[in-house]
């Protein structure tokens, strides 16, 4: 499975300055500043999932991803303004019939709630909600792969996962 990093970014720190002399021993310098909305996310690592065993009489055993996959997020969305950030997740192409790809994102320590295990498709689904004023990295993304016997033997294939930070409401 392939991964790429997707950045959603908005906003800058703005600072301008000018000088005005008021008196011989004192001078004042005017400063205008602002902090705009900043919402950025990145993802690193890749994961390999192989379904290769089963308990007799049952569908194949779920596979867990091998490889460190994490994400990092920074947002200055206010906790008191009613505005927060969610993280959605999707893949670029749906899985073959009989295969289900799942993901669980660890929520930041400072804020946010993980939706737990979500099923991935080309339709974005919320994986973490309610993130406010947070700057954290190295947050785990855990992948799982389930296959029914109906899927048959599936040759190695890859998908690109996209994480997007969205403002809510």
């Amino acid at each position, binding site marked *: 499975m392939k991964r790429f990093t997707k950045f959603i970014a908005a906003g800058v720190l703005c600072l301008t300055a000018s*000088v005005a002399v008021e008196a011989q021993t004192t001078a*004042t310098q005017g*400063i*205008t500043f602002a902090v705009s909305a900043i919402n*950025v996310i990145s993802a690193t690592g890749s994961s390999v999932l192989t379904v290769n065993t089963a308990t007799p009489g049952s569908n194949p055993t779920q596979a867990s991803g091998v490889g460190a996959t994490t994400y*990092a997020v*920074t947002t*200055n969305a206010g906790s008191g303004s009613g505005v927060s950030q969610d993280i959605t997740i999707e893949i670029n192409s749906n899985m073959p019939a009989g295969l289900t790809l799942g993901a669980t994102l660890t929520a930041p320590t400072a804020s946010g709630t993980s939706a737990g295990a979500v099923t991935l498709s080309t339709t974005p689904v919320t994986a973490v909600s309610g993130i406010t004023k947070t*700057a954290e990295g190295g947050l785990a993304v855990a992948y799982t792969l389930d296959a029914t016997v109906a899927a048959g033997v599936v040759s190695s294939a890859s998908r690109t996962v996209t994480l997007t930070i969205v403002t809510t409401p």
Partner: protein
Amino acid sequence: MDAVPGAQPSALTDQTARYSVTVASGRMKIAGQLDTPLPSGVTIKIQLAAPSGATSMGSVVLTDTPQDLVRFIPPGQRTGLPVTLILTATVTAGIVSYAASHVVLTLVDDP
């Protein structure tokens, strides 16, 4: 400037301002302060380039109390000396609308 995901917002530096100072006699220093407090989570640092023979205190966090910025200024006239301003904000500052503040520079005796 933006933020690197997982890190606090990047600092922004402005180096367009200049200052001038004239010392008639003795030894002087320049102290600086803000006339209004900044929002929580927002910090402004200032660094004044030192005139010849003087010592800059480097990058100093500005507060509403005077901080030494340049010391041991000997007599002389200097113009157009660089001023470096650095704005930083943590995510806890949130979104801050445009606001104005003033840096007050005061020339005083340096005993």
